[in-house]
């Protein structure tokens, strides 16, 4: 695991391997390509592999919850912005009125995005919200 700490910072030690989540290579993220409209926002989306690598680095530094967060974030890279915002809204107090919508979301994350950790996280929230009455409507 100590090798993971030594690989940091990736921008200095592994720059040649860095790609966006769609495979766009860091070397292609240049002014020329931006000027020629050859770069899109998708090309600057951090890759799940990179976040996984950062999770290993955080774990090697014994920052386990931070590592777990990076693992969840790695899964989240494939979620569209709108879906991330939609689920965030659903997790806020009183937005969802029972656990079914959270459970449905969890299934969708699991099936459509292979996001097992995020699915479990939503199911856990559904369980806690039920127990603590967070689903009650707030006006």
């Amino acid at each position, binding site marked *: 695991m100590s090798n993971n*700490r030594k690989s940091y910072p*990736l*921008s200095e030690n592994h720059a040649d391997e860095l790609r966006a989540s769609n495979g766009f290579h860091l070397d292609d993220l240049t002014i020329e390509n*931006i000027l020629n409209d050859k770069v899109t926002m998708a090309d600057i989306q951090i890759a799940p592999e990179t976040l996984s690598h*950062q999770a290993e680095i955080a774990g090697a*530094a*014994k920052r386990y*919850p931070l590592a777990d*967060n990076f693992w969840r974030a790695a899964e989240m890279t494939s979620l569209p912005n709108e879906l991330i915002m939609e689920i965030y809204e659903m997790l*806020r107090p009183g937005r969802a009125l029972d656990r079914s919508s959270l459970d449905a979301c969890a299934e969708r994350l699991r099936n459509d995005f292979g996001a097992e950790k995020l699915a479990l996280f939503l199911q856990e929230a559904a369980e806690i919200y039920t127990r603590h009455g967070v689903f009650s409507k707030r006006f």
Partner: protein
Amino acid sequence: MTWRHQSNRWRRFDDWDNRPLRLDLFSKDDPSNGFTAWHGENDPTPSLTIKNRLVTAMDSVSVDRFDMIDTFIARYHIDVDIAEEAMAMSSDEIARMLVDINVPREQLTRLAHGMTPAKLADVVARLSAVELTFAYAKMRPREMPGNQGHVTNAKDDPLQLAADAAVAVALGFDEIETTMRASRNSWSNALACCVGAAVGRAGVLFQCSSEEAEELEIGMKGFTSYAETVSVYGTEGAFIDGDDTPWSKAWLTSAYASRGIKMRCTSGAAAELLMGFHEAKSLLYLEARCLCMQRGMGAQGTQNGGIDGAPLASTIPGGVRELLAENLLAVWLDLECASGNDARHSESEIRVGAKITPYLLAGSDLICSGFGTILKYDNSFNPSSFNGEELEDFLVLQRDFEADGGLRSVEESSMLALRQRAVDALEAVFDAMGLAVPTSTMKQSVVVASGSNETETFSVGDVGRISSAIQQKGITILDVIKVLHQRGFRDEAENLLFLLRLKLSGDFLQTSALIRDQKVLSAVNRPNQYLGPGTGYRVSAERLSELAQIRGELDKDAVISGQAVHAASEAKKISYRDLGDYIPSSEPKEVVVAISPAFGTRLFQTLAGHSLADVLRCLGEGIEAEGMAMRVIRCWHSADTSFLGLTAARLSGSGIGIGIQAKGTAVIHKRGRLPHNNLELFSNAPITSREHYQRLGANAAIYARGDWPEPVIVTNQGEALGARFHARVALIYAIETAMLVADRHPQQVAITFLESSNV
């Protein structure tokens, strides 16, 4: 007794009432109403029970009675592999380990991960303010300290935001943060600061504090590189009223990381008290809950130390120590800490200066989590501890203590060009995107303005329209980079691209990351490894000389050239002619005045700015008014006032002499007295007037007559004369002492006044 002396109170209380301090409120310790730093009525006793690797009771609450926060902490924060060992240790022992240079930081962060909120609070509450400061220096995660600044203004004026962001970058801030007066202006603020922060240097992180969802949306467009306003509260009631839960905030935490955006949470003493959900628990215990939650969520860091609650926390006995304690909790848990010192906690400048000192001495990941880089009235977060007005005070504190507060001086000569560049860059983006066209008057007014009261710029309505257009057109950071490059702002385009490229690496998502010289420095590659003197962060020689630079430093050349300016005008007023060694006289109707070596030769003005010719004329007029004659000698063996005066007295026929230095310090002396036992001393040259010199002359003549005059008192208003003058005094006096000739006899000097006096 006259009416003027009637009073039913000691009038010192009137003086005290009128000090800014008395605008502050002070509240009584009231544990049942949440007004307590350390000991809430309902604070639990630390405890932890684990069965089958699951927490079944924590801090005197069993799992079936857990609220959402307890549940979250038990699941995500408590490391069951460490908990038994950590909870079994005595709080005193752990407290001592925190200040022990022989106990490495990692050993302590490990233990913290097995401790409950009540246990963590119990440990840090045992440390005094100085122990908290020391422990903070040892425990903060990153080796070198940093700082964060607010860039906002009262008009949400994007031109000014761009100019002020560029200034903040020049001042050395590692992070800049903006927010709005009108929330709809968020997109405009984000774009303007993003462009301004790209002027001058790459890698300054930028955030736009906004509503939770919108802040993330702005980040997704690439304008911002970090987020900080992910607020966390220590009671369920406050959390729900804040419109979130630990799970929704943890979701946001991952969301930021998934878009390559650095993120920290916000919490701080007294937030729950302000929101009305304190549960009769102490500030420290509630904050310990917040911090355990944040760590559990996987946030790399926190912004704590009161924050918006700091002013309220500071009204409570020990509240400021509590702020230090909660910052220590954050770094002990291994979280990056942006340590507050933002919302100004007091109207007293003494309290403000005292509050920042421990942080400046100990260093902090971000000393302020928002230093106001703009004027107080332009700070849309509320005035900070330090603002545009007091920025140089902070620079001088760095210089005084040789402590790195992350900032540096800016060159007066380069600021207008820098601000112009930022405004021009933003204008280029606005123009190319069809957002707005600022007039040259608008731009000029912003470039020179200290604050928004002085600008003629966009109306608040204009800004709203600009902001909506940025959002509706779907403008992204890529558009901005493209336009900047096309319009000739290539460095700025490259600087923004640098951050985009860095985002792909995720490097600045790690704990305590900031960017200096295009390198990411974080707790991973530059951890704080303080283990006593000679270890940890040491200010480099190069940085020391940067800290030393402050506007208007004095040196000997500056003093000499300052004096030389007056040489010509003095030559028109007076001539000094040496007549050889002075022979003691027996003339009883004389007062001898001994002048120092540089008097009228190298130095020409007193510290009060009086011409030396005028001063001598005043002395002479005073002496003559009392029927005596003035005779002038110049001493070469001493420039000390006492010895000048005593020499004059010994050589004077009347036995009375005056000694005077070029800087204006004077004495009346009498033959036969001990050198430092004079008749009258005029030691405060900076406030000695020409009238004083006249009366000095007169009194000397009265002593010469054998009478006792009323001594002349030079009254002051309590000015810190040492601060104002001593550096100049020392330089001037060195000019005098350098001219001394130890064995040279005092010389008689013929004085001729060349023009009529205006005294």
